[in-house]
């Protein structure tokens, strides 16, 4: 007899062998409420990686994509996905975000680093090279895209303001700086300088509310500096998105505290974007499933640690990238306390031709500073301040613009969890030094021995 938890269903996909990076068939294998990516390399054996753990139910976590590919390919098909980036004809989605790594230098030495910064930094790309990257993004995707300046740590470049100004002058309206915030904390006027250059937002590395978390993840305590940097960004009307890397046993307990702090600093802090840790660089032994966090783990932790202020059912799959890559929720504060969730399972049913541009503009607005001087206290109250349950359309739209708080999470793929069905839907593309557009997870992917799939491997570009 087979119990419900022994039942196995499978979905066929493709992946890479974590040891040799050769393409191998894979299946998403469902066992009870858990889902594993299972793959077998003829040479290196079987790999079984948890990709979904517990509720909400995996089978119900789907959303009809609202954004499809319309951009031209930048490369041709020769070896097949994922070796032809990019992007190649088999890619299914336009980019929503283009990541420009403007330096590989960093002012921290973090054990956790997607970008592998600091060990042997390459020379910074020239302004002319960065201008060419901007132009490539324009040609590939147009200007309705989020530009994220990343690194390394982009603020170590003294010409960062000039790089921001260059992007704005080329027509990009939303430029976000991915930063650890150290320079913002150390230099009083630096936030003002970035704002005047045209920075709309900071993607702000923020792993928790306790110094011990920073000691373990970043090598030293600097919670005080983090708070100072946030305050300076808010004061200078730079939208702040807190970005915690979540590592089992280090800061999983702090998820609720991060949310409560973010809410207390809203609307200057626009939202939180959780990033459960992935495994990159040399990992001779496959990371055990017990040290992996999946999207449901984070959703349930949010509900548990906020005492239900945000609930699992308030979160929804993405409308742009693959459903298994992220979740998000948007919330409005209620006048008497608590939150009104605007999102939830089941979303809209229809899409329009201009969905992509709208989604980018919506995200850009949400991650930018709220409009100055607006009536952010408009709410669904009568003249006596009592909540009526209804509000005017104008009041609602005003509150969305000024008070909405977003919580999202992105599950990055490493060599063990890589699922090419997901990768082909990626909308976060890194512009490689040679100008190719490469899905973020593929760009950062490394084998168990630390061999890279793309980073540091330039080819002579055709365009």
């Amino acid at each position, binding site marked *: 007899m087979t119990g419900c938890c022994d039942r196995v269903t499978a979905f066929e996909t493709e992946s890479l062998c974590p040891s040799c990076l050769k393409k191998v068939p894979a299946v998403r294998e469902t066992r009870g409420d858990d889902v594993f990516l299972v793959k077998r390399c003829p040479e290196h054996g079987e790999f079984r990686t948890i990709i979904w753990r517990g509720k909400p139910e995996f089978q119900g976590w789907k959303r009809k994509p*609202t954004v499809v590919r319309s951009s031209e390919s930048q490369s041709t098909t020769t070896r097949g996905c994922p070796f032809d980036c990019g992007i190649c004809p088999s890619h299914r989605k336009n980019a929503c975000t283009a990541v420009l790594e403007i330096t590989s230098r960093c002012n921290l030495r973090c054990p956790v680093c997607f970008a592998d910064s600091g060990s042997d930094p390459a020379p910074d790309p020239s302004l002319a090279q960065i201008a060419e990257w901007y132009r490539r993004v324009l040609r590939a995707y147009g200007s309705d895209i989020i530009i994220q300046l990343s690194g390394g740590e982009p603020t170590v470049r003294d010409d960062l303001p000039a790089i921001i100004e260059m992007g704005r002058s080329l027509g990009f309206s939303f430029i976000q700086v991915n930063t650890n915030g150290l320079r913002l904390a150390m230099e009083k006027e630096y936030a003002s300088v970035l704002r005047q250059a045209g920075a709309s937002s900071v993607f702000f590395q923020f792993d928790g509310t306790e110094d011990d978390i920073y000691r373990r993840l970043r090598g030293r305590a600097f919670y005080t500096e983090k708070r100072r940097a946030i305050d300076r960004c808010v004061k200078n009307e730079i939208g702040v998105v807190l970005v915690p890397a979540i590592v089992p046993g280090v800061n999983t307990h702090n998820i609720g505290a991060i949310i409560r702090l973010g809410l207390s600093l809203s609307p200057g802090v626009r939202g939180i974007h959780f990033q459960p840790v992935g495994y990159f660089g040399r990992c001779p032994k496959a990371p055990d499933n017990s040290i992996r966090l999946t999207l449901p783990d984070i959703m349930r932790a949010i509900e548990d640690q906020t005492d239900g202020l945000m609930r699992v059912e308030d979160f*929804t799959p993405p*409308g742009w990238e693959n459903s298994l890559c992220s979740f998000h929720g*948007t919330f409005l504060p209620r006048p008497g306390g608590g939150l*009104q*969730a*605007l*999102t*939830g399972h089941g*979303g*809209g049913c*229809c*899409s329009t031709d201009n*969905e992509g541009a*709208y*989604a980018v503009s*919506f995200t850009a607005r949400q991650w930018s500073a709220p409009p100055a001087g607006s009536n952010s206290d408009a709410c*669904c109250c009568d003249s006596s301040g009592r909540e009526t*349950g*209804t*509000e*005017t*359309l*104008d009041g*609602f*739209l005003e509150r*969305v613009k000024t008070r909405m708080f977003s919580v999202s999470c992105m599950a990055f793929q490493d060599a063990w969890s890589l699922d090419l069905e997901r990768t082909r839907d990626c909308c976060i593309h890194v512009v490689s030094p040679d100008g190719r557009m490469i899905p973020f997870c593929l760009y950062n992917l490394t084998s168990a021995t630390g061999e890279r799939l793309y980073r540091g491997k330039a080819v002579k570009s055709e365009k």
Partner: protein
Amino acid sequence: MNFSQEATAWICASCGGSLELTKVFFSYMKGNFEVDLPACPACDLVLVPESLVSGRMAEAERILEDK
């Protein structure tokens, strides 16, 4: 044309009466709203002007549909 002007520019298709600005309540997904719209006091028929449908109402709809 504002909604007051819309109210005077239309008559009720059902009874031929004049429209008056009336507080109308509507719900969509997780939102409950009120808006003053031209309506027939006799028949309760409501005119939802195109400018509202394609403007603020569409914007609220997209937010609630999370697009």
